[in-house]
């Protein structure tokens, strides 16, 4: 499969990656090269082969439905790149918010 510039631009949008216009063409070449190499898989007959869901035979466990932590808003928000806003400025365990650019007018 050879990817064109438009497809690369569409994938970049889906992946939320800004790709400058002049990089689209070379990227299309690189990605097409990788995909062409990957396509040797088409030689393998996989009719009636169930896709591997997990390498281990372990059945996924269910945990008890109970709260195991909480009250750590300050820890959760500590790395917020845009800064955090706390509901109660004096009680940082009470909860708070990450901040993002304005999304409503």
């Amino acid at each position, binding site marked *: 499969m050879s990817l064109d510039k438009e497809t690369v631009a569409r*994938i970049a949008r889906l*992946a939320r990656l800004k790709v400058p216009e002049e990089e689209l063409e070379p990227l299309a070449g690189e990605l097409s090269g*990788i995909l062409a190499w*990957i396509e040797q898989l088409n030689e393998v007959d996989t009719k009636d082969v169930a896709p591997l869901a997990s390498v281990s035979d372990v059945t996924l466990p269910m945990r008890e439905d109970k709260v195991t932590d909480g009250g750590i808003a300050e820890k959760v928000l500590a*790395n917020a790149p845009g800064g955090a806003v706390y509901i109660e400025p004096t009680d940082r365990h009470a909860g708070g918010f990450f901040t993002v650019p304005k999304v409503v007018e």
Partner: protein
Amino acid sequence: MAALTDLTLADLAKAMAKKEASAVEVADAHLKKLDEHRALNAFITETPDKARAMAKASDERRARGEAGLLEGVPLAIKDLFCTEDVQTTAASHILEGFVPPYESTVTTNLWKAGAVMVGKTNLDEFAMGSSNMTSYFGGVENPWKRRGDNRKLVPGGSSGGSAAAVAAYMVPGSTGTDTGGSIRQPASFCGIVGLKPTYGRCSRWGVVAFASSLDQPGPFARTVEDSAILLQGMAGHDPKDSTSAPLAVPDFAAAARSPDIKGLRVGIPKEYRVDGTAPEIVALWDKGIEMMKAAGASIVEVSLPHTRYALPAYYIVAPAECSSNLARYDGVRYGLRVPGKDLTEMYESTRAAGFGKEVRRRVMIGTYVLSAGYYDAYYKKAQQVRALIARDFKDAFAKCDVLLTPTAPTAAFAAGEKMDDPVTMYLNDMFTIPASMAGLPGISVPAGVDKDGLPLGLQLIGRAFDEVTMLKAAAALEQAAAFKGRAAGY
């Protein structure tokens, strides 16, 4: 007594148990090595103050008679393991400055066993690479050089810093993670032992995720026994990782101390004899076969027919899972934020600035193969091929107990070589990826040197959760190969 930094992990632990050295003295001796060899760029973050505090606490525990398995042993931790209050970057600009408020399960286990952290090691960005050249913090230099050639060589990747730190005697052991070969290939390049456990043996909780169905933490050390001791300290069931196996941890160290392989059936997969492998590596492999035979093993030729498809299948599965895992880096909750006029522009600019070239490439490939209309053609196909690869191994292990193969198709290469074409770089992992795709344990043991004096490793692959047999075979190979090489100047 030999210098503290020259001791194996096992001997270092014994010396401290006999009160010949305190944990503080041991930590200081190793921290001095970190100072001396800083030019290798093996560490992203050094933690000397933390190391001394942990060593002091270790000495106090020992004085109280509470010494653990790794009491006082200094370790380097791949900067992919979250460490509480210590910056964890995954070697990416997007996580620069990120200070986790929690500790990964594997490192928690190590500290509980008494180990001391000296720092966080460099790696390929988000563990994506085989050279350590994709790190945002610059490449790591391999302590080894070609004879009569002063060019810097890569340590392999992705756990290149962890491997270089052990090879340069800065630490007796370190942690890595292996998704497609990221422990075994750098171990081979640096002349040390690297062990990738069975998927599920070590908890992935608190390890920055790359490809969740493949990622597995494991140890580096200079001997098989040391790697077994470390694995013992790292492994164990963890309810916080739903794919962690609810199995007891066997006595790995005891297995590594009993290299009796009489009657063991060693499988030699014929499909691993491929063009592009350095002739010296093929010769070393043949020598390894003779060594195993001489040690009493029987040699069985086996077939893994889908071997050549493991690599292309991996390059669907791993990017697909990475594109999904790396969606979390959005500039909102942690890491880098590049401002934008609206939310979408902020996401797109943050991710473009925060991810390096190889990571962006894999996110794009992953996004494409998972996008509407292509899922069956790529991801489903790859998982079907993966099922066939797993079946190949199952069939082979009906006839043998371990497999012996080369670890990597070449010795360490120079920084800048093989950088032009991503696919050429991907071929580095041709011998390690099949076992990863099947979730099997593998270990690289240094077994010889090439014509330039560079170390070469051989790989042993075991049955799922049978690291014990694999370690016995590895100890036998280590004994027979008697590799005593050490990088000049380290």
